[in-house]
């Protein structure tokens, strides 16, 4: 029983990471039909930003320093996302395949760039001592870092839902996911929303990178790309453009992975997720909470 609780919370922590990566992907795809294959690089960039802060801002004690690290990761993600959209994606509006190809090249170059700067071996993140302590829940000793990741992810999920439902920008984004041509016809500048979703997606992925560095005990340039595959699976299972669907699918995918890895055989978890994807696509191609394809 206690191991079941541990696996569940570990799985939900992983789900939090998938959600942070996948929600941005899903919004970007829903609004702009761009499959952003450079999204894993945003994740890694956030992770390295957090690593750098933890490594060099030594005048702060580890606790507050980690808050600064999360902020720095979000900032790096936001700026990178906005720059990529403004500088590169924008030049290829309307050409979806070309945009996908561009992000592939970009992701490849960005991972190699980080490899050139930081090397490919994982850099260990200095963690506040509290992170590695455990809290007892229902007889299981849960590392606090898992709870932290889960908490931050839930907080950001709520924040994102509020942003989408309560603000004008959020309204435009939701409308744009629904019908971009109509929004444009109403005289609203959709292009600005494009930059906003890229910046937002970058920020979420950046925070994901910082937390991922905690979860995986270090950050390496290819960590984001490795997670990106699962984030794609989450996006497709959840339904493109649906934030609640993404959250649900993130939990489903991560729990499947963790349970199968621990109860059946290590390594089979990832394969069972792939099978899950194939099944969902064949039975319900639009994903769990997605609209039927036009």
């Amino acid at each position, binding site marked *: 029983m206690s191991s079941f609780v541990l696996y569940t919370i570990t799985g939900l922590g992983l789900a939090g990471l998938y959600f942070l990566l996948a929600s941005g992907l899903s919004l970007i795809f829903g609004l702009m039909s761009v499959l952003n294959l450079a999204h894993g690089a945003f994740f890694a960039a956030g992770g390295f930003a957090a690593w750098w802060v933890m490594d060099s801002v030594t005048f702060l004690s580890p606790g507050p320093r980690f808050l600064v690290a999360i902020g720095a990761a979000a900032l790096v993600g936001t700026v990178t996302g906005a720059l990529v959209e403004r500088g590169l994606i924008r030049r290829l509006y309307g050409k979806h395949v070309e945009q996908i190809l561009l992000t*592939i090249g*970009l992701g490849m170059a960005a991972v190699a*760039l980080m490899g050139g700067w930081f090397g490919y071996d994982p850099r260990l993140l200095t963690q506040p001592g509290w992170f590695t302590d455990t809290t007892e829940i229902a007889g299981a000793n849960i590392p606090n870092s898992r709870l932290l990741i889960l908490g931050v992810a839930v907080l950001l999920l709520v924040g994102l839902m509020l942003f989408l439902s309560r603000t004008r920008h959020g309204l435009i984004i939701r409308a744009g996911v629904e019908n971009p041509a109509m929004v444009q016809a109403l005289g609203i500048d959709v292009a600005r929303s494009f930059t906003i979703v890229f910046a937002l997606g970058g920020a979420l992925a950046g925070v994901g990178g910082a937390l991922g560095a905690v979860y995986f005990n270090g950050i390496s340039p290819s960590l984001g790309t490795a997670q990106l595959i699962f984030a794609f699976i989450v996006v497709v299972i959840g339904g493109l453009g649906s934030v609640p669907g993404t959250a649900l699918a993130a939990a489903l995918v991560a729990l499947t992975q963790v349970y199968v890895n621990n109860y059946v055989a290590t390594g089979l978890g990832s394969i069972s997720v792939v099978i899950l994807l194939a099944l969902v696509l064949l039975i319900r*191609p639009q994903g769990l909470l997605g609209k039927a394809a036009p």
Partner: protein
Amino acid sequence: MTTKPLEEPATTRPVDPALVPHGGRSKAPKVLAAVAVILALLPLVPVGIPVLFSGPFDTPGTLQVLAVALTLAGLAMSYDVIFGYTGLLSFGHALPFALAVYGTNLLMAHARLPYPVAAVVAIVGVVALSALLGAVALRTTGVAFAMVTLAFAEAFSILVLTDPVRFLGGEEGLSIASDMVPDLFRGVVNTRNIYWLALLTAVVVYVLARRVVTSRAGRVFEAIRENEPRVEMLGLAPFPYKLTSFVFGSGLAALCGTVYLLVVRGANASITSPDFTLSILIMVVLGGAGRLWGAALGGFVYGVLNLRLSGVATSDAIDALPDWLAGPLSEPLFVLGTLFVLLMLFAPGGLSSIGRRMRS
């Protein structure tokens, strides 16, 4: 995927002379034949290109690089049939290639089949499996198709990396069962023969792919790429054509895989990874999708640069640069990725379109 309006012009881009059926007016085959002859004579030439290659063309090191590049040229052409001609964005093209590499080697090591038999069995197996996977994956379109194919390839990649039955070598990979390889292709001394085999394979892939894309079925492939609803309206079912294209491209990839095994003398887990699939996509687009010789050029250039850029990067010119610049510049994938992004922005038709762009 959004459906395109029916009023779209008949051709969305100028008709490429290389695509005109039966080669009557096309210069491409003659030029390519000349290129093939030059490449065939290279191993006899004791000169080299100083910075790009570590030694003259008749040394094993340089021939090895060229043989890898030629295999990748073949692989890129095989993907061009699926992506460039038929417009199917598969993210799993590493799968048939890697399956053939692993399959051939396992058949040699465990079933004790001699190399040529193992290679043929592996290709037939891959073709059969591709027909099955393609039939499932092609139930979806667009990005969903990309995801399903990615998932299939990823499943094999995970299988190789985790290696539950201690059979596939894990991250280390497998080394070639060289006792089953004919003497002609064994060891470093015979690199020249392996190079010629790689060249022959690239030529065979080109000829076969060209026959198919210029056939009647090939015209339907292109029609599906341009406007699938219209093909349906003309009374043709796109599915069998898409499946044919997918299976044929996969079969050619498998052929390249059987040769790649000899070239690199083993099976490495990296060729199963999604990153490798994406780099095949990059090769094709780098050279120019929808044009076989463009894809071949892209694969060749990618292969040479990927293997040799790190050698070039240790040159003095780069050493003199500050660390923050020298680090990334010595990463081949940084240079290739950046080059690719620039091409996408400024020459979307790839390398093979640059000549025509300058003329017009």
